[in-house]
C-alpha cells in the first residue's frame, strides 16, 4: 500500500476549478517532484497535501490514516516555503526547535536534535542569530533545518530555491539531494524548473491545468513522453516539434508513419548538421550558440519550421549559411493532431544498451 495516497483530489476556488481530479501514490522514502508551468496547480496541490487549503473533493491518506480533513498541525508534515517564512522574532535555535517545543519534547532531546541538524547544515555558528542577520542561503538552510529536526512523515518543499541566485541554487540543490540520500525521508518538491526536477526526483509528476500529464522517472519522461506537452516541457533546449506538413521530407524521405495532421518530435541531439545536399533536407542557419562544451545551432527550413540541433563539437557555421540536416529517424517521436504520442523514439541510451 502506498505511503501517501491522493484519490480523486479536486479543488475549486469559487468558480475556478484549479485541481481537476488528481490520483497519485507515493511510496515511503520516495523523492517526488511536481513540475509544470506557472498556474498549473502544482503549488496548490502541495498546499492541499499540507492542509493549508481545504480539499473540495477526494481523499488523502498518509501512512494508513485518512488526513483529508485533518488540520495542518495534526498531519505530521513539514514544509519549506519559497519565502523561507522563518519566525523573525526568534533566534535560529528557537526557529529550529519551535515544533519540538510545541510538541513538549524533552529539552535535552530538543537540544541534541537541533545541534545535529545545525551540524548537517553548517549552521552551528549561527544558532543564536536572528533570521535578519543571515544571508539568503543561510535562511534557506534554517528553513530546511526547521523541517528536519521534526523528523516528519513527509517533507514538502515549495519552490525552495527560486529566491536564491544561480550559483547558490545549484549548490543548495546538491545539498538537498545529499540530505535526502542521508535521511531517506519521503519528499514532495514543487518547482517550475525542469532541471531541478530531473536532477532531484525519483519520480516526476508533470502537471498542466490541474491535471497530471505524466508520472515517471526523469529519464522515462525524457525518453518516452506521453504527449507533446511533456515532450517539450522536459529537456533543454526543448524538443523540436514540427508539423509533419511543414517538413514533408520527414514522411517522404525518412518514411516516418505520421498520423494525419500530426507532429514529429526530435530531440536537438538527434539532428546532425551536414554539408548541403547530404541529410534528408536542408535549412538555413539562424543563430549559433557556442556554449563551450556544446554548440546549439538554430536552423529554419524551407517550409518555415524552426529546429535546434545540439552537437558536442565546435562549429565554423555562421548565421546565413545553408546546411544539410540529417535526422535520426529511429529517435523521432510521433504525435497525433491532439498531441498524443503514437510512436516513441528509440533513445540513444536504449539503442546503446541493446
Amino acid at each position, binding site marked *: 500500500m502506498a505511503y501517501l495516497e491522493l484519490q480523486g483530489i479536486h479543488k475549486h476556488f469559487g468558480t475556478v476549478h484549479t485541481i481537476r481530479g488528481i490520483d497519485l501514490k507515493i511510496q515511503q522514502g520516495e523523492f517526488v517532484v511536481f513540475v509544470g508551468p506557472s498556474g498549473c496547480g502544482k503549488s496548490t496541490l502541495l498546499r492541499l497535501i499540507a492542509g493549508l487549503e481545504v480539499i473540495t473533493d477526494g481523499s488523502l491518506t498518509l501512512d494508513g490514516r485518512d488526513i483529508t480533513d485533518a488540520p495542518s498541525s495534526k498531519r505530521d508534515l513539514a*514544509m519549506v516555503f*519559497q*519565502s523561507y*517564512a522563518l519566525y523573525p522574532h526568534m533566534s535560529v535555535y528557537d526557529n529550529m526547535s519551535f*515544533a519540538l517545543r510545541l510538541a513538549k519534547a524533552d529539552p535535552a532531546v530538543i537540544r541534541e536534535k537541533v545541534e545535529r541538524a545545525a551540524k548537517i547544515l553548517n549552521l552551528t555558528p549561527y544558532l543564536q542569530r536572528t533570521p535578519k542577520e543571515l544571508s539568503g542561503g543561510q535562511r534557506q538552510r534554517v528553513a530546511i533545518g526547521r523541517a528536519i529536526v521534526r523528523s516528519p512523515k513527509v517533507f514538502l518543499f515549495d519552490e525552495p530555491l527560486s529566491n536564491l541566485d544561480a550559483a547558490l541554487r545549484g549548490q543548495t540543490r546538491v545539498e538537498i539531494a545529499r540530505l535526502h540520500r542521508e535521511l531517506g525521508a519521503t519528499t514532495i518538491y514543487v518547482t517550475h524548473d525542469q532541471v531541478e526536477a530531473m536532477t532531484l526526483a525519483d519520480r516526476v509528476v508533470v502537471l498542466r491545468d490541474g491535471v497530471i500529464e505524466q508520472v515517471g522517472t526523469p529519464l522515462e519522461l525524457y525518453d518516452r513522453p506521453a504527449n507533446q506537452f511533456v515532450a517539450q516541457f522536459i529537456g533543454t533546449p526543448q524538443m523540436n516539434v514540427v508539423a509533419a506538413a511543414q517538413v514533408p521530407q520527414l514522411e517522404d524521405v525518412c518514411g516516418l508513419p505520421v498520423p494525419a495532421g500530426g507532429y514529429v518530435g526530435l530531440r536537438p541531439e538527434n539532428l546532425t548538421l551536414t554539408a548541403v545536399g547530404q541529410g534528408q533536407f536542408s535549412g538555413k542557419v539562424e543563430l549559433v550558440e557556442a556554449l563551450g562544451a556544446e554548440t546549439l545551432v538554430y536552423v529554419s527550413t524551407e517550409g518555415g519550421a524552426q529546429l535546434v540541433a545540439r552537437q558536442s563539437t565546435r562549429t565554423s557555421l555562421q548565421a546565413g549559411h545553408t546546411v544539410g540536416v540529417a535526422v535520426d529517424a529511429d529517435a523521432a517521436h510521433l504525435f497525433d493532431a491532439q498531441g498524443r504520442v503514437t510512436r516513441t523514439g528509440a533513445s540513444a541510451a536504449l539503442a546503446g544498451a541493446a
Partner: protein
Amino acid sequence: MARPAKFPLALVVRTVAAWAVTLLLFFPLGWLMLTAFKTEMQAIHVPPQFIFTPTLENFREVQVRSDYLLYAKNSVITSVLSTLLGLLLAAPAAYSMAFFRSKRTRDILMWMLSTKMMPAVGALVPIYVLAQQASLLDTQLALIIVFTLSNLPIMVWMLYSHFKDIPPEILEAARMDGATLWQEARLVLLPLGMGGLASTGLLCLVLSWNEAFWSLNLSSAKAGTLATLIASYSSPEGLFWAKLSAASLLAIAPIVVFGWFSQKQLVQGLTFGAVK
C-alpha cells in the same frame, strides 16, 4: 559666482510656517494653563495679564467642590477597559480579514468604517433607551460598552492594516510546525503584531479618555468621566474661567503626559501603511 545661501528661502519660509502653526495649535492649551493659575478676577482682566502671581486656589476648589479623584478613576476604568475589550474583539476580526481574505473583505471594512460617518447624536435616543431599559444609565459598564463600540471600526481597520503586513507564510509555517490556533496567535502573531496592537491600543485609550458626547449623555455623578467634570464647570452659575481651566487642566494632564511618552508608537500607528 554667488555661494548658495546658508539659509535658503524655502527653508526659512517652512520653518516660520511650522512655528506659526505650532503656536496657533498650542495657544489655547497654553492659555488654559495660564488661566488655571490665575484668580477669577485676573482671568477676565482686560487686557489679558501674562505676568501675575500664580495661585493653586482653583485646583483646591475643584477638588473640594467636585470629587476629582472619582471622575479620574471613572476615566481610567472606562478608557482602559474599553480599550482592552476593543482589542479583544478587534484582533480576531482583523486576523480573519487579513489572513483569510474573501471577496467581501473590503466591503465589510468599508461598511464598518461607514458607521463612523453617521453623527453620534443620530444614535443617541436608541442607545439612551437601551441603556435605560438595561438599568445601565450612569454606570461605568454603559460607557465601556459604548466606547468600545464606537472605537471598534477604527481598531479593526488599524489592526487589519498592521496584520496585512505580516507574511501569511509565517503563520502557515507555525501551523505546519504543529501550532494550534491559540499557539499560533500567542507565539507568532502576538509578537509580530505587538507594534500594531500597542499603537491601536494607545490611540483608542486617548480617544476614549477624550470622549465627551456619550459620557455627558449617559453618565452624571456616579460614573461621570473627566469630560463631564469639565462640563459641570461651564454652566449653572455662569462661567468661572479660572476654575474651568483648572478642571480642564486636571482632566487633560494625565493623557497629555501619557501621550508624550507614547508619541512614537502613536505616530507610527497612525501613519502605518500610509508611508510604506
